[in-house]
């Protein structure tokens, strides 16, 4: 009799234990998302596509899609859980400015300072953001969500997270994953568009080597750059302020250790945290929705528009430039701010048509201008739509 009681007690406990395991509430959606996470890991490890981003995001997706019983403070959306605490940096938007601090501390703006007209290419590529904004409105998204989706076209993960955290927090997971995925796919998406809009003759244009920039100019750049852009778009201060501050740490010459920390350990830590928590925020029930698919489609379109706008703008700009001063339109794609991948794409494509024409230094100009441009665009969207 006692044995029977013990067996039923054991059975009940085992049953309860089984209900706590992930197998009990595993759904098809979870399986799909885990496969997506594994695909990210595969692409990062075997194809070397943006491993610094895709490995944390891919593993984060797997973490976020292990089903569990709610109420145990485990999940990323459960108040007080460890993952939730780490996720606050994404939700409250304090990771993106810290990433921008690191980007500023590792970016050399000399290509841009020596040839300031390249800044305009960085502005032109922001057409992608607003093209996608219009399309998102047509897809039926409210204006604030359309703005957050459009920023994917800026090819700037931290900016996308920063803006969607404020304008459309419920779409943050889809927007962040979409932005980072397309940033990883820059070498795949951009070259066909660049080839489509350029002639063979244009692709072999040789640009004047950049002049040497003095340290004084490099110090002036972050200070004046911040004052000029922040006065125009104060809502972009968190991003622009940290970007230019990071650059000042690098260039002023007296804060070497701070610059090294900002571009080294600090940005690495934040990249790990942002990647893993953004990945974990893609829980199947929140992520596998028709809206997420629409966001992915719009993200791809915005990238394409941005690339095309950058290339076409260079061609248009060349109409006004003297022979010898012309710009190779293959650097137009670098106006999207995926640093330095899009500049690398310009360089590689340039080398395909002329093995001695290195465009990397030139492409870095619009590339870093794109970072400033997308931060300004984010500030405008935030100012208008929040």
């Amino acid at each position, binding site marked *: 009799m006692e044995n029977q009681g013990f067996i039923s007690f054991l059975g009940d406990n085992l049953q309860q234990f089984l209900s706590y395991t992930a197998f009990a509430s595993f759904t098809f959606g979870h399986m799909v998302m885990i496969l997506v996470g594994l695909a990210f890991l595969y692409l990062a490890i075997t194809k070397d596509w943006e491993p610094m981003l895709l490995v944390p995001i891919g593993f984060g997706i797997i973490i976020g899609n292990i089903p569990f*019983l*709610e*109420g145990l403070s485990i999940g990323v*959306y*459960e*108040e*007080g859980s460890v993952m939730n605490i780490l996720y606050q940096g994404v*939700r*409250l938007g*304090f990771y993106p400015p810290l990433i921008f601090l690191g980007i500023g501390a590792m970016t*050399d703006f000399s290509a*841009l*300072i020596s040839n*300031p*007209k390249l*800044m*305009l290419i*960085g*502005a032109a590529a*922001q*057409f992608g*953001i*607003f*093209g996608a*904004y*219009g399309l998102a*409105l*047509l897809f039926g998204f*409210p*204006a*604030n969500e*359309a*703005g957050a989706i459009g920023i994917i076209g800026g090819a700037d993960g931290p900016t996308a997270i920063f803006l969607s955290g404020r*304008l459309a*927090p*419920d779409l943050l997971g889809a927007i962040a994953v979409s932005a980072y995925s397309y940033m990883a796919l820059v070498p795949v998406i951009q070259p066909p568009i660049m080839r489509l809009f350029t002639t063979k003759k244009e692709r072999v244009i040789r640009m*004047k080597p*950049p*002049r*040497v*920039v*003095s340290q*004084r*100019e490099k110090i*002036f*750049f972050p200070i*004046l*750059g911040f004052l*000029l852009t922040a006065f*125009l*778009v104060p809502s972009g201060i968190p991003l622009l302020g940290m970007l230019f501050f990071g650059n000042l740490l690098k260039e002023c010459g007296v804060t070497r250790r701070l610059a090294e920390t900002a571009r080294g350990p600090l940005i690495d830590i934040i990249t790990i945290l942002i990647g893993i928590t953004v990945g974990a925020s893609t829980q199947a029930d929140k992520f596998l929705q028709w809206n997420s698919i629409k966001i992915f489609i719009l993200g791809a379109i915005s990238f394409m528009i941005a690339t095309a706008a950058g290339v076409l703008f260079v061609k248009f700009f060349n109409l006004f430039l003297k022979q010898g001063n012309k710009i190779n339109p293959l650097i137009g794609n670098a106006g999207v701010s995926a640093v330095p991948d899009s500049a690398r794409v310009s360089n590689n494509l340039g080398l395909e048509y002329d093995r001695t024409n290195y465009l990397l*230094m030139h492409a870095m100009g619009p590339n870093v201008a794109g970072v*400033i*441009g997308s931060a*300004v*665009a984010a500030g*405008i969207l935030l100012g*208008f*739509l*929040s």
Partner: protein
Amino acid sequence: MRSKLYIYLLTGCLLFAGGQAAAQSQSDMCFNEILVYNIDDYEDDYGHKHGWIELFNTSRGTVDIGGCYVSNDRNNLKKYRIPKGDVLTKIKPRQHIVLWADNMPLRGTFHINFTLEETNTLYLTSSNGRDVIDSLHFPTGEGPFPIMDYITDDNGDHVVQKGSIPFYPSNNVSYGRLMDGENIGGDNGWAFLAKTTPSSNNVILDSEAAAQRFKQFDPYGVIMSITAMLVVFIALILLYVVFKNIGRASINSGRKKAEKAGVSPDVVAVAQDAPGEVYAAVAAALYLYAQQEEAHDIENTILTINKVTRAYSPWSSKIYGLREVPHKQ
């Protein structure tokens, strides 16, 4: 004295930032409206009428209030725990939830274990049971108490008095914020309202949210695109103009310095137009010539040959190091 002032300012800024940084968490919830005597007002799912408390999510993100506590006793903040695991406890951005103050907690998640007649103070506490997210002290007793309402006329939206009540609690009269989640107007944002609005906005103004207005006036995003691109271009054109001139000034000052030093203007012109590679080649040649250990790169494109000096910094000073061996007296 001055440094102290800076410390206070910095602390103030940090505290302010800390306060601001609480968005989209349980701390974004607040009391929004209450009704003590519900005679023929809002009914619960059982068809009964009781007093109710409306909570409002002030943030733009979903907030889960599961695990939060509601109480009417300062010494017992954990009087009623809103159960976790109920999907309905996830409050959408800028949305409301009504708790029934009927002292019948067995009727469901949103039926709390006290009534509003007991005391005139309410506390909303976060799931850690310690941090009071919001508290409310509502007036009771003899009045008269004015009843306020928002109206929209040629002067825009503003609050006007619409009669009064002789005492409170009065039947079917709610006490709520004049604007959802705001502390503007009335008694710290609160007043007796002209109509009860459980589970909906206390006031619906004609003025819409900026995003809605944008979509209304600009359904295809054309105006937004043109305006925003104009601003982006202006920002970067400004940078272009400034740095074009700074570049010129820098070249000119370099030329003047070289001329002062007796270098021929032709050599200066050639040197300034020379691309970075030329400098790199010259520097590399000098390096090879001198074969000095001190020569080192500080940047990607420029090879500089400098004497290495180690600048003193208290941060790296061993005097202040934590691992300093204690001195024997």
